[in-house]
């Protein structure tokens, strides 16, 4: 133990974040979110008519998310198209964003969110949620709060924030815990766990995630300001 991680970060330090709004011209709202070497692009289309008609909800609009990993995003080419994993992440993304959006004004309509991972280095679902939250705000969908997500975990007996690929594949076992926060309400909208961890460690990790999400929110705010306040 030398007090530093493999890429020189502190235990509670997240990777360098970049965010950019309005990168998909044809969409109603779009955003790029980059954390370390993970890059996610989200595009929002809608609110628009929803078909087939039996899926329509006359009380409120619905949110539909689609997560996709580009075939070149990982070291070894992955088969393009939907997979068991991408269906799962689409679902958790939807559930993570659902408490933040308010679609009551759009009955019978759908808001489509497309998340594309163009470069993956662990933490893709969290990057996807952050990008989707920005894209929804850019599209002008009424939102109760922004959504920030980060993966925390336990690597080599230490609680660390924002795990990268090396740490995720650590030989002696690592625990990966993606967390999504609604920062104002201080609520958790996504919590998954892969690996083993003690109760006290979870509490410590969640506190670390909350602090990291505050940093992410600042970056998100800055990105939105850059587009709207200065042109």
């Amino acid at each position, binding site marked *: 133990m030398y007090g530093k991680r493999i890429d020189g970060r502190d235990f509670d330090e997240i990777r360098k974040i970049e965010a950019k709004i309005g990168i998909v011209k044809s969409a109603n709202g779009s955003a790029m979110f980059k954390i370390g070497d993970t890059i996610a692009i989200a595009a929002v289309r809608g609110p628009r008519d929803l078909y087939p008609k039996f899926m329509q909800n006359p009380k409120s609009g619905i949110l539909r998310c689609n997560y996709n990993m580009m075939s070149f995003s990982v070291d070894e080419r992955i088969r393009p198209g939907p997979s068991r994993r991408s269906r799962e992440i689409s679902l958790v993304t939807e559930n993570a964003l659902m408490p933040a959006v308010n679609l009551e004004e759009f009955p019978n309509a759908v808001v489509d969110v497309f998340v594309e991972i163009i470069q993956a280095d662990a933490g893709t679902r969290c990057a996807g949620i952050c990008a989707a939250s920005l894209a929804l705000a850019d599209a*002008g969908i009424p*939102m109760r709060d922004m959504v920030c997500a980060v993966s925390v975990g336990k690597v080599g007996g230490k609680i660390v924030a924002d795990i990268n690929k090396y740490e995720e594949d650590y030989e002696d076992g690592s625990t990966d815990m993606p967390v999504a926060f609604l920062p104002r309400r201080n609520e958790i909208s996504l919590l998954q766990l892969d690996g083993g961890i003690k109760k006290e460690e979870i509490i410590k990790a969640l506190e670390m995630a909350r602090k990291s999400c505050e940093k992410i929110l600042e970056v998100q705010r800055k990105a939105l300001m850059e587009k709207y306040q200065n042109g």
Partner: protein
Amino acid sequence: MGLVIKEKEFVIPGDVIAEGIDYLPAQGVFREGDKLIAEQIGIVHVDNRLIKLIPLTGTYSPKPGDAVIGQVVNISFNGWSVDIGFSNLALLSVRDGSSDFIERKSDLSRYYDFDDFIIAKISNVGKGNLIDLTMKGHGLMKLQGGMIIDVSPSKVPRIIGKQGSMITLLKELSGCKVTVGQNGKVWISGENSENVIEAIRVIEKESHQSGLTEKIEKLLGGK
């Protein structure tokens, strides 16, 4: 208590604008407990006790009295369905379809056929977003010739300008007919329509900067 964020400041969704019960939420703002919270990206505007957001983005939300440009997508026995760039279609009933008398069982496509563009006024927005249109009013008509471009609905007030100053300028300098729908569709008809499109794109891009009128004058006047 009171305002947390000052007037004319930029907010993102989830920002607390005011605390306490002194203020009331209007467009783009909602109440949660004793806090007023921003729902969209926008600029805070305080009007007495009302707090509203001037939205900087977003799709068009229909309001009664708006003049909009739409496309006929369906004809049924009692009227026309019109796409006005909103998630739900708007309905133009036979009764409000024309100032002429439309006989029963007459062929409705004689008035407005599929794919025709019309300028119509929103007469009513009901629950469940049922939008009623009317063609009875000044300047409401079927569009013939010209072209239609899309602009962001949040930029429409800029294109119209204060008391219609900008649009009058566009019309006078280019000699084109220009109609701006509140839903972000602009109809341009005339010989120099390319120049008008160019000018509108400049307005859209530099809407926040001062000296826009001079710039447009230069752009259209120089040609």
